[in-house]
């Protein structure tokens, strides 16, 4: 039986507040030290109360877990550590009952080398359909123009397979062979996998590593027209069978190349704005708006049905790939004085530690996340300012157990602490005893309550998700003002990127006669006239104004 998607509005993702979480890390329902669907189910009330409208789950499929589940060994099941398919169904229904959509991860570029398809391929004769599920070569010299992404772990994109007597192609870890989309049988199988989850009622997929689907000699094997053709066919397949579902592309590429993943509204509904994210951090540290305004000026318009996915932090390192060498150097110096925090081309830290635990900076960045054009994504734990642990290897330091209480195991599990899939964060500043949900629920001034208020406020103003953006250019470069518009709704946002009080003179003469009403406290400001509108902003302050027409 096919279960309909849960959203009534086909463009639901434009007004969503997405919460990214790892089932493993959220809550342990059976006390074996690993988070599971039974645990997640128990915490849905928390998420509903927080106000998020969509959950994005990191991979939860059977996997040898050599890349935290991004190495999928079976697309149609749940990793036994996280529960059963039935548990997933129960969770999905409960989330839908609470009005939340659920987006799951689908790694379409590669599988685990433990996947039955790969085990079958390596033993199959060259040229056979089974063999051709993956990309093979007698030499490791093909596609030499393709870069190696995990530079800290892999030297080549080819690895020798002694069983197959051939090299196989992988853009990521050597245990993650790339699927061969030149073989039509591969796409047909992937479509069946999608149907399997969509039939269950899943509302969308995040398509992992989507620029790398197809390889061609003489290219860097990224963003190829053939890759876009595969995505178009996936989209057409889904649109032909289901309504109200969403595809979110992970394409860590410059804005102009990411734009292609929306196609003419016939590829992905959403894609992450990767280049914006590090530049927000850069602008903050530079106390200068230009990194943000520059990248936004280079951000192309999208087809009507499409939307950017915005984030500050996620389950990966703060990637600096989409920056120049000099920008990257700046970021390393600014945000990773400790070399241990660096990984691949990025910084493996959570939001609160990156902000030096400054509440004002966290709030400022969150205000940008919530007021830029796109759909905001909150990484689990960042709503309470959770800490990280850069000594855990790879990106595991930002995937530690959710900090629920000040009790043993941060209230995440009642298992013996040694059994936890990962140690909880224990540092005295961001560790679970200082930072946890229970304490913040009881503290009216906590970051958690602030987040709840902001989420609820953002949901009142669709213009923040859907409207256009126009930057103002006051002389003071430490101040970032912008207008958001959608029909009659106009919102003026002003952010102070500096740690000191700043003045701003805004040219709002085109809005002469409007009355700015500060949105958080519903406080009326003096009406806009023809002279520059003068504002003073405290350290890292931000103002959101709804512009109301003057009363007759």
């Amino acid at each position: 039986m096919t279960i309909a998607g849960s959203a009534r509005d086909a463009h639901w993702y434009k007004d969503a507040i997405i919460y990214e979480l790892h089932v493993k890390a959220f809550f342990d329902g059976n006390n074996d030290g690993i988070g599971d669907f039974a645990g997640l189910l128990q915490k849905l009330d928390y998420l509903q109360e927080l106000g998020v409208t969509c959950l994005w789950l990191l991979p939860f499929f059977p996997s040898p877990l050599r890349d935290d589940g991004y190495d999928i060994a079976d697309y149609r099941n749940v990793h036994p550590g996280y529960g059963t398919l039935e548990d997933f169904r129960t969770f999905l229904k409960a989330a839908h009952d609470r009005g939340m959509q659920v987006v799951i991860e689908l790694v379409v570029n590669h599988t685990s080398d433990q996947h039955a398809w790969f085990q079958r391929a390596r033993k199959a004769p060259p040229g056979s359909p089974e063999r051709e599920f993956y990309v093979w070569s007698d030499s490791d010299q093909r596609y030499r123009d393709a870069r190696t992404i995990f530079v800290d772990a892999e030297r080549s994109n080819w690895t020798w397979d002694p069983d197959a007597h051939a090299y196989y192609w992988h853009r990521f870890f050597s245990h993650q062979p790339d699927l061969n989309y030149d073989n039509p049988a591969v796409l047909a199988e992937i479509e069946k996998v999608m149907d399997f989850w969509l039939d269950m009622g899943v509302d969308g997929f995040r398509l992992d590593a989507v620029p790398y689907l197809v390889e061609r000699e003489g290219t860097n094997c990224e963003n190829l027209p053939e890759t876009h053709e595969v995505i178009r066919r996936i989209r057409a397949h889904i649109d032909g069978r289901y309504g109200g579902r969403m595809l979110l592309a992970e394409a860590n590429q410059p804005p102009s190349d990411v734009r292609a993943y929306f196609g003419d509204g016939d590829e992905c509904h959403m894609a992450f704005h990767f280049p914006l994210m590090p530049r927000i951090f850069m602008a903050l540290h530079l106390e200068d708006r230009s990194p943000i305004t520059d990248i936004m000026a280079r951000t192309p318009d999208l087809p009507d049905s499409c939307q950017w996915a915005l984030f500050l932090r996620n389950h990966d390192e703060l990637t600096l790939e989409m920056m120049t060498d000099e920008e990257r150097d700046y970021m390393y110096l600014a945000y990773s004085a400790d070399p241990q925090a660096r990984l691949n081309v990025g910084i493996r830290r959570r939001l609160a530690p990156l902000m030096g635990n400054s509440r004002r900076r966290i709030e400022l960045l969150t205000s940008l996340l919530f007021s830029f054009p796109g759909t905001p994504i909150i990484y689990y734990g960042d709503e309470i300012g959770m800490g990280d642990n850069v000594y855990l290897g790879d990106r595991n330091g930002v995937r530690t157990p959710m900090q629920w209480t000040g009790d043993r195991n941060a209230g995440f599990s009642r298992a013996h602490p040694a059994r936890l899939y990962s140690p909880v964060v224990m540092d005295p500043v961001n560790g679970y005893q200082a930072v946890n949900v229970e304490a913040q629920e009881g503290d009216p001034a906590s970051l958690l309550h602030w987040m709840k208020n902001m989420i609820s406020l953002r949901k009142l103003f669709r213009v923040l998700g859907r409207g256009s953006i126009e930057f103002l250019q006051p002389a003071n470069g430490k101040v970032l003002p912008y207008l958001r518009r959608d029909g009659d709704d106009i919102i003026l946002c002003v952010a102070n990127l500096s740690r000191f009080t700043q003045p701003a003179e805004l040219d709002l003469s085109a809005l002469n006669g409007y009355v700015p009403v500060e949105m958080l406290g519903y406080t009326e400001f003096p009406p806009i006239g023809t002279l520059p509108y003068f504002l003073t902003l405290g350290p890292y302050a931000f103002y959101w104004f709804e512009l109301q027409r003057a009363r007759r």
Partner: protein
Amino acid sequence: MPDADRAAAVAPIVVGIGTYNNAGTIAAIARAVRDGLCRDFSVRDSRIVLADGGSTDGTPDLVREALGDAAGRLVQVGYPLHPVDLFDAPYHGLPGRGRALAAILGAARELGAQVCTVLDANAEGLAPGWLAALIRPVLDDAFDFVAPYYARAPHEGALTRSIVYPVFRALYGVRIRQPMAGDFSCSGRLVEHFLGQEGWQDGARAVGVDIWTTTAAVCGGFRLCEVALGARRHETRGDAPDLSMTIVQVVGALFAGAERRAEFWQRVRGSSAVPVFGQPTEAGDGSPIEIGRLIEAFRLGHRELRDVWAAVLPPATGVALNRLAQADRPSFAMDDDLWARIIYDFAIGHRLRVLPADHLLRALTPLYLGWLAAFLEQAGTAGAAAVEERIERLSLAFERQKPYLISRWRWPERFNA
């Protein structure tokens, strides 16, 4: 029903009545409907839709009998009644009213109605001209929603006057006197709109379906008007809920609606009147109320419920209430702005789930009685015009205090978290 049949089966006028064991009143209503339709319209163009929840007292038979010749125009539909509907007696007396209304609206759509008039089966004294008064504005003047404006004595309908009307007006910007009346008319366009909305027929919202319809009409941008209908008496049933329960249901529905429609009402400023057909009349004095007992009930509530109040009311309001509890009768007065803030703070407490909704709203009862005492003390023997003027002043206070509500709605103080 196939489209071709639907075009053929046009019954421009549909009058719907939801019933469940209304043997006491239904025959008179059915006769009034028949007479009203015969007098002012062509009976051939009309259908009377009876949505019955499975009456055991012969209500449908009484309707058929009362309609006489017009019984051929009767369309009877059922609506599912759940045992839980019978457990909690709703203030309007019709269990499962949301589903009854859905059944009526569904039938109206099937019949291709241009106007659907819904009548409350508990009300007595349906005057002959009322039906036409409710129907005409839709047929003749293209209004989408017609709300009744009943005349009421100064102390009657106080819950509507002191909370429902001023809050509805301040929030949604429309001056509808009785936004939760059980009788109303809607256009075919609005019937479609109602049926296209989800989640209102069932659950807790069903109790407040009357205010839901008015709110949906306002938020959907439909054309609204009122018709002055004189006085109408509602039969008091043995199972009618007490005042606290009525407050839980009525104010709860009002607050729940505010939560669903925050995006709409937080953009509305000021309010405007809607066209009124007919001349509002004065109702008689009704039976007197013992003001001293109201004040006593307020004082008792103040002693017993202060701590509950403190969970939602800010300290300044607490101090003002302490003062009021000590005031003697001649100086017993509640400031309009204070009353508006109290209601708004309860709305915020309701939204934040500070207490279970039932407990919270029941705790409002003595405060309401205190307000009522002050109101009656002031209104005294004043005439209807003075009462009107008084309610207008109160409503302006609710409008004036709306920024207070919005700011706390968006950024709750959580002073007692």
